[in-house]
């Protein structure tokens, strides 16, 4: 292996560490703020993997949309749902916590084992990395063959925003 390949594997390991550590914090932490910070760490790890595959546009979009917008939304959701008297964003524990954890572990492990075996056996050979796709090619593709999905995603986004506003107004009217 050449020097560059070693460096690529080292970078992959670093991003994998970010994803695993962040993901564990995101699903296990009792404090929802910590779990949000774990999610952000995971998002940065995935963005690093996009960079490693030389897809910088998607990596920057990942940081812009997820880290910039979605995590702020989740932060607002945590802030605005403070129970009276309680602290914001803490999950209480129930007596059935152990049973719940075991069932969740089974739910996560079943697809992981089955799909993992399929991935290891059936994944086609990796080709050497293609040259980076120009942004103009992506843009032409988005307005050409992907035009319908481009329009539909804008409709979906509009409906979601309008629905959110509507739900907010409905809340005020019922008081």
């Amino acid at each position, binding site marked *: 292996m050449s020097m560059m390949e070693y460096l690529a594997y080292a970078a992959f390991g670093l991003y994998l560490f970010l994803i695993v550590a962040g993901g564990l914090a995101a699903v296990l932490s009792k404090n929802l703020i910590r779990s949000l910070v774990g999610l952000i760490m995971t998002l940065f790890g995935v963005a690093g993997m996009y960079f490693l595959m030389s897809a910088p546009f998607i990596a920057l979009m990942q940081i812009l*949309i997820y880290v910039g917008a979605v995590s702020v939304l*989740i932060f607002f959701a945590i802030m*605005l*749902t403070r129970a009276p008297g309680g602290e914001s964003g803490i999950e209480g524990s*129930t007596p059935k916590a152990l049973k*719940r954890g075991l069932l969740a572990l089974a739910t996560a492990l079943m*697809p992981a084992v089955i799909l993992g075996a399929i991935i290891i056996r059936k994944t086609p050979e990796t080709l050497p990395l293609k040259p980076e796709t120009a942004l103009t090619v992506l843009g032409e593709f988005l307005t050409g063959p992907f035009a319908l999905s481009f329009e539909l995603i804008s409709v979906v986004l509009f409906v979601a925003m309008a629905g959110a506003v509507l*739900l907010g107004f409905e809340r005020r009217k019922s008081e």
Partner: protein
Amino acid sequence: MSPLVWYHLTALLLLSFGLFGLTSRKTLVGMLISVELMLNGAGLALVASTRLTAALDAVGQLGALLVMGLAAAEATLVLAIILVVFKRLGTTDSEAVSFLRG
């Protein structure tokens, strides 16, 4: 193992984390965080399987972009739903919100 297998196993790991969180979390916000983890895994698998094979590159990258757009729309709507549930019930515990239970 080839790099493509590693990328796909990472995506599978994200899916498993998300499923675990979705079933073990008790608050709606925690479940939303888990769903975002799963969607990230989907995007990673899409981009990896078009960047590292002979498939058309733009399909995977734009597919991942559409997944991000859907995730943003979903997060907005879930935020609004969480606020309404909190206003009406005073809690976002998923076990308290079970009127439709048989």
